[in-house]
């Protein structure tokens, strides 16, 4: 047999259908991957530096600006870290409504990613506009679910993009009972659509891929972890947010303005599939049955199951929001008083894209001395490159260039990377001679 070897150089100058600006370089020589690099070139935004000297009262609104898709994750993580340092015990009402607010963000972010960004790949479409020609009902359903997530965010945050509802100590205000009753009706009405969405996503043919990887997600003893819990790792490690630096490290690569993270020196996965892999025992029995009926076995080693994982989390978030809004009452006060103190505040939550970790050193007057934020996309960066390498070998390097390019883009989109979130913390070392 005469085996033909070729040299392939694929350069995707701007990745589309991801959040922010990145590129991909792939070089194959003699049937071997010689170079594979996810390049993140979006300029850094220096958010941590902006926070220095700011009062704790400003932090939730400032960090919300890091991302237009997952601002609640940033707000809740910052507020919780500071509340922990200041010894603030939230009213149970505020604790529950934070989680309901967060559910809204999971619903809108996941639905947006599934329908606008990821699904077109699996139907041979360039965009959701093309997808709408062949699956109009599914796209309409996705938009309805996304809009409901936005509405839930708007309810607690006064607006869904860069909401302003959260303050350290609780919320600035509380929705009226009539507005809560209105949204509960909508949440209940959309449940069958969310179940149909899971069945639709599970029916989409995805590449069969099998990879060993480390999953990292928060875990909670009594619920599916969103805003509270320990950081869990698939090798059995369980740690508090304060211990993050003892096990996880960040480093620079020349090709990226975002930092790479590693766990004990190896890449790892955060996000919906990592969460399901670590927390599937916490799923209600009827969800387990639904997944079994649709052929998703957990834990999964196929990153292409991320699409279904997002649909499962949409359904969970809808049910959770309904549960939390049951017996809603308007509180006497939506916030408790706060007295700042000096020290180090650390916190983490599960943003739609995965673990989000914050650390603030505060002075005695409640001003930020320094800040550090580790977003999900930077944590997934090393895993994306590792996945691309393994997935391409599994897919076969002898495919035409266009097929290789599309496969790489599909792999990257599985992670729903938010490059804009990931590029705000570049540290610059300037050498002068």
């Amino acid at each position, binding site marked *: 047999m005469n085996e033909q070897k070729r040299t392939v150089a694929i350069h995707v100058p*701007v990745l*589309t*259908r*991801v*959040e*922010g600006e990145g590129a991909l370089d792939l070089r194959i020589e003699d049937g071997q991957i010689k170079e594979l690099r996810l390049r993140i070139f979006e300029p850094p935004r220096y958010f941590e530096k902006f926070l220095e000297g700011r009062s704790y009262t400003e932090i939730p609104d400032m960090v919300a600006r890091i991302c*237009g*898709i997952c601002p609640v994750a940033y707000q809740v993580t910052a507020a919780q870290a500071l509340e922990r340092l200041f010894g603030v015990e939230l009213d149970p009402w505020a604790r529950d409504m934070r989680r309901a607010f967060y559910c809204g963000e999971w619903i809108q972010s996941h639905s*947006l*990613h599934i329908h*606008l*960004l990821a699904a077109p790949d699996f139907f041979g479409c360039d*965009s*959701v*506009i093309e997808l*709408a*020609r062949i699956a*109009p009902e599914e*796209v*309409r359903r996705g*938009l*309805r679910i*996304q*809009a409901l997530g*936005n509405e839930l965010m708007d309810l607690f945050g006064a*607006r*869904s*993009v860069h909401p302003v509802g959260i303050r350290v100590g609780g919320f600035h205000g509380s929705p009226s009972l009539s507005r809560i009753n209105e949204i509960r009706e909508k949440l209940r009405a959309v449940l069958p659509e969310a179940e149909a969405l899971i069945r639709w996503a599970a029916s989409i043919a995805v590449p069969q891929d099998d990879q060993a990887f480390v999953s990292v997600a928060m875990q909670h003893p009594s619920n599916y972890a969103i805003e509270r819990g320990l950081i869990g790792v698939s090798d059995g490690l369980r740690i508090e947010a304060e211990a993050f630096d003892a096990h996880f490290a960040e480093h620079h690569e020349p090709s990226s303005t975002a930092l790479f993270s590693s766990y004990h020196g190896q890449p790892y996965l955060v996000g919906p599939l990592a969460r399901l892999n670590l927390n599937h025992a916490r799923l209600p029995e009827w969800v387990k049955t639904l997944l079994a009926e649709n052929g998703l076995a957990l834990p999964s080693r196929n990153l292409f199951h991320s699409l279904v994982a997002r649909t499962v989390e949409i359904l969970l978030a809808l049910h959770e929001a309904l549960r939390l809004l049951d017996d809603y009452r308007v509180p006497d006060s939506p916030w408790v008083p706060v007295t700042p103190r000096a020290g180090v505040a650390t916190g983490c939550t599960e943003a739609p894209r995965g673990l989000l970790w914050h650390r603030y050193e505060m002075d005695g007057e409640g001003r930020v001395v320094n800040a550090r934020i580790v977003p999900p996309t930077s944590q997934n960066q090393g895993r994306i490159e590792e996945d691309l390498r393994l997935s391409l070998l599994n897919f076969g390097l002898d495919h035409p260039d266009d097929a290789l390019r599309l496969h790489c883009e599909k792999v990257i989109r599985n992670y729903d990377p938010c490059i*804009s979130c990931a590029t705000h913390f570049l540290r610059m070392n300037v050498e002068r001679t």
Partner: protein
Amino acid sequence: MSGVRILGIGSPSGDDQAGWLTVDALLASDLLAGREVVIKKLDRPGAGLISLLENASWVILVDAMQSNGQVGRIRRFDQKDWPGYCHGLSSHGFGVLDALSLAQELGSLPPRLDLYGIEIGSVNPDEKPEENIQAAARQLANLIAAELGHAPLV
């Protein structure tokens, strides 16, 4: 829901408030009083714009635009030109024309849709819009009021 909706799209950054200013000019007048018209200011609605078109008979959309033209110029967009302006579908950049193209594909466009753009200059946060943008917004509000069968605003 009202059959007629006027939607001003923008952000708080400088001239990007052009759509909001147009809506403000209409709201500040009483020319639309007594007429059932829904008027809204929207902050970068993305795909959320589609649900706001539902069950309307006539939607008038006003947004800022940048095309290297004269700042303050008002342009009316024809539906056949939309695809040429759609680009780079990330959800951070899912713009008005992307949303309208998707709505068109889904059959969700109202029977009548008028899309206006006001050519803008700078969009820096915390800056006020330029005077010529404010004048263009008043001019466009007059035009819209006339379209709706009202006398011009003062």
